[in-house]
């Protein structure tokens, strides 16, 4: 799954630590999502989108390989 988290976070002038505090997760979790190592739950995705004042589907999008692989 692709995401524009890093871009949207920069647009909002927010550090990983600040975003992590606002959505109540660790900074490592935000970093893992940004580098595509971890796919967040629906609840966390909505929280991140809300804090960054955007929509979930603007932040996260499916890739070709997402249809035939499971993390």
């Amino acid at each position, binding site marked *: 799954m692709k995401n524009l988290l890093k871009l949207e976070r920069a647009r909002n002038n927010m550090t990983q630590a600040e975003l992590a505090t606002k959505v*109540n*997760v*660790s*900074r*490592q*979790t935000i*970093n*893992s999502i*940004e*580098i595509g*190592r*971890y796919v*967040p*739950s629906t*609840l*966390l995705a909505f929280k991140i989108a809300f804090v960054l004042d955007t929509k979930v589907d603007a932040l996260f999008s499916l890739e070709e390989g997402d249809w035939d692989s499971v993390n």
Partner: protein
Amino acid sequence: MKEQRTFWYSSRFKIIGILFILWGIYSFFVKYREHHLWDINLVSGLLCWGLSFILFSSEKTDDERTHHHKFKALTWAVPAGLIITHLINYFFLSPAEPDSGKYTPSVSAYVALSIVLIIALGLFYYLQYQDRIDEKSA
């Protein structure tokens, strides 16, 4: 939408877990010194309690990524622990023949569970460590 609490006890219970482990190791050596017995069941029983408190208590920063790591660690640890238990039984406890009319010997449940919990805990901290390495290299 209210998030459910995954782990029942707080991170402070890790200290209780460590105390259980130390108690187990101390009891093991006391029994060996006084009776010259290698009581593996005694130490592994207390090890199980200690490791359970450490693994299943919440972390300082407890989030879904941490829960994912614990789940991943357990999915590897359970089959790996099962394989190790079988190998110990096979190589060290001289298994009875299927038609011998004897019970099949096996290590105790405490020992088997200790093996699983040790692997799970080691793997969990390794995954957490990997995250920190990735963060530094990003």
